[in-house]
């Protein structure tokens, strides 16, 4: 993972501090969950290299992220939704899959073309999802067109991917890269792998016919100003899609989740989720790249989610959704609002020592 460098000591100090804080923050949460129920399941639509598809999205409860148990990422509250005590048995995981299929049968006319499985961790980590379960799931969904499974880059392995492609599934591994900038990933997000590890995972996935990587980016982790966040995303989108094997980037604005350091900062007036204009700006600026760039702003228009002035949030969100579908930057010419000037002033003026300049 990280290369030894003169900054290693500093790096350790920063990580220790972030982890200590995040452990304390997460410990305020005493919720626990039924291991036989998925954390969440829903139906939606996605842009993929095969055009627009219907998706069944599953957040599988696998006992949560190991990294989060150590403290983990500063903006991530997902672990708060995992079971007590660690790992979930094969039977329980399969019970969760059954519950998802029931959900789909009740709510959709046809089976979804694409299955997306997130785990708040690594689906490909066998301590989290045993090989037996992974294979069973591959078979269960073998009748679909595509599958997306979430994993840290370490666990991306061509043999595991082949288990899915052999079922005839186009297989994307979703990697929560967050940013292509190692410094930001490490010090702002507190996530510990390097862009080089992501590149290695891309190489591994693309070694399999039908395997690929989908990069998840996080716009505006804590401590970055709006302008820095926009620049970081523009750079990151381009760097990701330059890597062979990465065909899609999902760039998602940070929101304020419960039991996170971001939430503490937010409460004290030290964090504001990104402007929707910032999302639009990055999508528009990088529209010329070779690959798909989408964004799914969660909680848009609310104080804890990405937002503009309140008047234009829905319009800009719709333009972003349009862009997701058509990849055409002219969708953003259709929306304007007086608050663009405010956003421009914020992007130009905000510094890490003066943020946020506007709510």
């Amino acid at each position: 993972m990280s290369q030894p460098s003169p900054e290693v000591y500093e790096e350790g100090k920063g990580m220790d501090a972030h982890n200590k804080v995040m452990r304390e923050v997460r410990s305020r949460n005493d919720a626990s969950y039924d291991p036989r129920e998925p954390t969440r399941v829903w139906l939606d639509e996605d842009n993929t290299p095969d055009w627009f598809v219907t998706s069944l999205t599953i957040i599988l409860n696998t006992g949560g992220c190991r990294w989060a148990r150590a403290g983990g990422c500063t903006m991530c509250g997902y672990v708060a939704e995992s079971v007590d005590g660690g790992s979930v048995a094969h039977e329980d995981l399969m019970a969760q899959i059954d519950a998802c299929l029931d959900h789909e049968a009740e709510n959709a006319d046809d089976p979804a073309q694409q299955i997306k499985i997130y785990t708040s961790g690594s689906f490909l980590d066998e301590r989290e999802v045993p090989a037996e379960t992974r294979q069973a799931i591959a078979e269960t969904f073998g009748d679909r067109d595509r599958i997306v499974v979430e994993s840290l880059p370490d666990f991306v392995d061509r043999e595991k991917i082949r288990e899915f492609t052999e079922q005839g599934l186009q297989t994307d591994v979703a990697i929560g890269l967050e940013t292509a900038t190692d410094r930001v990933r490490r010090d702002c997000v507190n996530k510990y792998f390097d862009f080089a590890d992501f590149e290695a995972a891309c190489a591994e996935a693309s070694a399999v016919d039908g395997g690929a990587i989908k990069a998840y980016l996080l716009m505006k982790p804590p401590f970055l100003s709006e302008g820095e966040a926009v620049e970081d995303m523009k750079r990151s989108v381009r760097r990701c899609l330059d890597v062979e094997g990465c065909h899609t980037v999902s760039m998602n604005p940070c929101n304020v989740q419960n039991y996170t350091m971001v939430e503490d900062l937010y409460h004290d007036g030290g964090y504001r989720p990104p402007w929707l204009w910032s999302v639009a700006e990055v999508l528009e600026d990088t529209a010329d790249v070779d690959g798909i760039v989408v964004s799914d702003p969660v909680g848009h228009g609310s104080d804890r989610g990405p937002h503009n002035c309140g008047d234009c949030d829905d319009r800009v969100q719709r333009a972003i959704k349009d862009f997701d579908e058509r990849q055409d930057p002219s969708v953003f010419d259709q929306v304007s609002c007086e608050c663009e000037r405010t956003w421009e002033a914020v992007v130009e003026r905000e510094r890490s020592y003066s943020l946020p300049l506007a709510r």
Partner: protein
Amino acid sequence: MTDYFEVHERDGAARLAELRLDSPVTTPALVTDADRADDADGAGQGPDAAPEAGVAHPVLSDPGSGWATEPDAPEGDDSRLTILPARGFPAGTPDEVQDAFEPEYPDVDFPSAAVVSATTATDHGTDAYVLSGAHGLAGHARAFVDAMIGVREAIPPDTALYLPGVATPANVATLVYAGVDLVDADRAVVRGTQGRYLTVDGHQFLEDLDELPCACPACQQPREEFDREDCARHNVNALAAALKTVRRRIRDGRLRDYIEGQARHEQWLTATFRRLDQQYAYLEERTPILRQAEITAATEDTIRRVEIQRFAERVTSRYRNRFDNPLVLVPCSARKPYTDSQSHGQYHDAVQWRAHKVSMTSPIGVVPQELELTYPAQHYDSVVTGRWSANEIEFVANVLERYLERTDYPRVIAHVPEDYRPICERVEESLGTEFTYTVEDHPTTTDSLGNLASELSGELKYGKRERQHNTVRAIADYQFGDGAGDALFDDLTIRGSQPGLQAHDGDGNQLAVVVRPYGTLAFTLAGARRWVESDAPTKRVEIDDFVPHGSVLAPGIVDADESIRVGDEVVFEGPSAFAVGRAEMTGPEMARSSRGIAAHIRHVDERD
């Protein structure tokens, strides 16, 4: 070492200072990025110019934060203030994270600023400090006051404090009052783009204004054509104008009087200056012991001012009454000194030096006759309506009670009008004594004055000598500490006459003189020597090996008593000189500053 910042005037925690760049900037100042100077034609008026172009000093250089990119070694020059790259900490950043990511600042030889937070602030050897996380402080009086005090005490006194991203026309006076030296226009501009029209008395929605209540250039156009960009320009102009008012007020020593009125427009600002009043030590250290400016006592908050509290504290814990005669309590007069007023002339005619006169007043408390000329007893102006608020009654009664506990009078005669009665009665009750009341209807009626005269008919007069001796000693008590009057002036002869009394010792050597505008004592060398040898608390400054003339600069000072305040008499001792003068900075500033005038020397004696 601070090379590029020097404080010239102090008014409480507010300072008038100079950022010594190629073109010097007088602070408190509105600053902005160096690249937001003027637009191409240089006038700062073009359509693409930043709203603060031509208004704010374009002196900041910010190579960027350390969160996003590995900072390069900073570069700078004498034309700008370079903010050294660092990871800024937004409000709410946990302490552990701040510790782990605390920047290390290189030593640089150009004007520089270090980014600090309320928790991590410490001396980095830079000329200025940028306080991060201000957004979480503005609007929250307690957090703001705590942060300001913490940071100001942690960084050297002769460095500038820059509070980024929060200044508005309404809050800037209070920010400066609390100790901020540099602000930017970011918030004013952002609010302008949101259609908020900012003024010193708050803000309005632009769409609600049918008339622009301002005469700045941006507002000189038809209302319909005035857009949000113009609003941003107006906001910046209003902020710049507010800062000009603040600078003028500091020069005049009258910022507090302004704050008491202006801060009322926003709750948190009022709460801020009140909370600062509760942080008495912070303000007391920074408030001069004398000044020319008058105190306007127009609000109840005046009672909490340092000058007022300090006078009351000194009168009730340092001052000694040396007269044996009865006490006559009289109301103050609008005219200062009281003795010059018609009413006090009439009281005097009735009393005829047969009693000790003490004036009762809001907001000062009680003023013994010897201290009538001493700052601030003749330097305030209050609004007299004959109606006392509960706070005023409580304050004056409290001071009078403490005063009486420390003094010993055979009798107390209260020659006061009806509205003073509740105060007197409170004190009578709590001390279990009885005052004699002599006023019928009004203190200056013939009957009242006759009552007063006849109450004193059996008393002996005290002479001029006693009066003058007691005055000099009382001022010494007040100025130098409990017992100082006796310790310094045991054998005393007085020359000159009120108000310029000169104190000589028995051999005719002059020791001190009462300085006219302030009613305080200034020592001669002989007086200073006696002060050093006496038991009275001395304010000493240790200087390097040189003979000071005119003024002493901070770098020449080795150490200084913590208790020294601006305006204090100070003795200077060094290998080559013994001198006496008046402090221009506080003791802690003298000890920690590397620039600026520390004191003015009055007399110096070379040692060999």
